[in-house]
């Protein structure tokens, strides 16, 4: 009970630190932040209005408190370039990124599960080699290369998907990049549990091979696999950011990168905070699962 409360408290503290860090970006600008900002964005908004809106007229801590109070009310500021409130835009883009990542998991995970399980069950066979080769190949594919090539294959030569605005191709790219890693991971973990667990006894009792594979190979390590998936949230998010740019899918990464390039600070602050918080959530979820499923490790 106490440890849960302590964890919750530390989580809130870490989130506050991240919030402060994202708000410090604008103050870290070289020279007078306001001058730099006006010069970089070329905005026509009045200097004094901007100064007040970004709370640059106050010292850092009071401004941070003010921002925090506004953020708790759901007000994340206004975009300098589009003059629209940031919060609804971020929410809309977040949903798009969520769609992309879920579809990636949906496409990539079954393939890696199938390949990993088969390879684990037949060591040194052809399927084992295919799994290793697939893993090495997928890890060597830079998203900015394989993305456009998939676009070429499936939107230009074989016009199955539209060239932009479709979620399938970015999800396919991401699934391709990540499934190799997942397949290799599943293969090595399941093989370990097949060797060390009670799989031999189960085989001797005459259980069908597929049941041995699931019950004595996959189930014992599923907790640590799920936990690993939690720690992968950040990498999946970063991968989604890159593919969003390649395929012009309007998700959070698209918003973050384009606002970094155009120096739209209120948008940068909000998206960076949400992305960092999502990574942390993934890590915590992984830790939680790890502790729940394998308590003897503590």
């Amino acid at each position, binding site marked *: 009970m106490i440890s849960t409360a302590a964890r919750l408290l530390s989580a809130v503290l870490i989130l506050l630190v991240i919030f402060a*860090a*994202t708000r410090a*970006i604008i103050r*870290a*600008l*070289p020279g007078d932040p306001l001058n730099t900002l006006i010069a*970089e964005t070329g905005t026509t908004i009045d200097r004094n209005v901007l100064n007040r809106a970004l709370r640059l007229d106050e010292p850092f801590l009071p401004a941070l408190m003010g921002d925090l109070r506004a953020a708790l009310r759901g007000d994340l500021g206004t975009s300098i370039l589009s003059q629209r409130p940031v919060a609804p835009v971020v929410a809309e883009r977040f949903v798009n990124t969520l769609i992309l990542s879920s579809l990636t998991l949906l496409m990539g995970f079954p393939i890696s599960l199938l390949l990993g399980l088969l390879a684990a069950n037949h060591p040194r066979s052809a399927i084992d080699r295919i799994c290793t080769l697939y893993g*090495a*190949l997928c*890890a*060597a*594919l*830079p*998203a*900015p*290369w*394989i*993305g*456009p*090539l998939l*676009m*070429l294959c499936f939107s*230009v030569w074989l016009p199955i998907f539209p060239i932009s605005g479709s979620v399938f191709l970015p999800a396919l790219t991401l699934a391709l990049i990540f499934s190799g890693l997942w397949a290799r991971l599943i293969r090595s973990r399941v093989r370990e549990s097949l060797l060390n667990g009670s799989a031999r006894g189960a085989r001797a009792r005459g259980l069908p091979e597929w049941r041995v594979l699931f019950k004595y190979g996959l189930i014992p390590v599923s907790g640590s696999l799920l936990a690993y998936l939690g720690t992968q949230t*950040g*990498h999946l*998010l*970063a991968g989604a*950011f*890159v593919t969003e*740019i*390649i395929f012009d899918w309007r998700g959070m990464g698209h918003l*973050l*990168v384009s606002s*970094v*390039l155009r*120096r739209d*600070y209120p948008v*940068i602050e909000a998206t*960076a905070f949400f*992305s*960092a918080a999502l*990574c*942390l959530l993934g*890590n915590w979820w992984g830790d939680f699962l790890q502790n729940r499923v394998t308590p003897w490790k503590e």
Partner: protein
Amino acid sequence: MNIVRDRALLLSISWLCLWLSASALLGLLGGSISFDISAMLQLPEWKAPFGYDSYGRNLLFITLLSSFKSTAFGIFITLLSCLLAVLIGSSVAMGPKHFHVVLSRILDAFLAFPPLLFALGWAAVRGPGWGTLIFALLIGSAPGLIRLTFARSQEILAQDFILASRSLGASFARIAFHHVIPAAINLCIVKAPSLFAHALIAEATLSFLGIGAPLGQETWGSLLLQGRDYLVEAPHIAAATGLPLVLMILALQLISERLTLHQLRAKKQP
């Protein structure tokens, strides 16, 4: 590790040597590449096996020149990460215990977020450029490597032979320079090829996004961007500029794997 008998390894090393020496030759001799608007986006022919790019330049030469910058950058980052990892990892492991926790927490903070997020935050302040690229690639490679060298140094320090040599009167410096640092360097040598591969991918990705190499500087990432922009008119740009990169990453991964195997075998039969 038998290089001659292992055909995949031989192929990887020869590809690396071929491409790196060709690009270094072109890069160091400062070969100038002629613009020829009439050849714009033209398909490969015998004089230009990769075809021509959007400025009518020979794409093979441009890819070699750009990859010279990218690989030089990747090697620089890899060496810098190894240096940092050996220095920080071994010195903190040999230092007082409460520093161990501090280092672990700092590394946790870096490893909890994808390097791309740090890179974007940095780019929001400093804008794109070589400095941003150095920062982003270091954040991507150094913390993981420091954690490994730190763990390895701790492992070495806990061994019996360290206690034995201490009781024989070995000094702090002797233990550091004869046992801890060599082990950390050994680890870095095994990890270096895959770090280099990661640096190449990260450079290409960041420059593609526009937060890496400064405008007008051509690297592998900016060539990939050109490939995407002319995907429909000239698909050969996208295919040809990335293929050498993928082959290079595959070769580096293979070398890294063989090095790891070699070291495992060496450990088993001393």
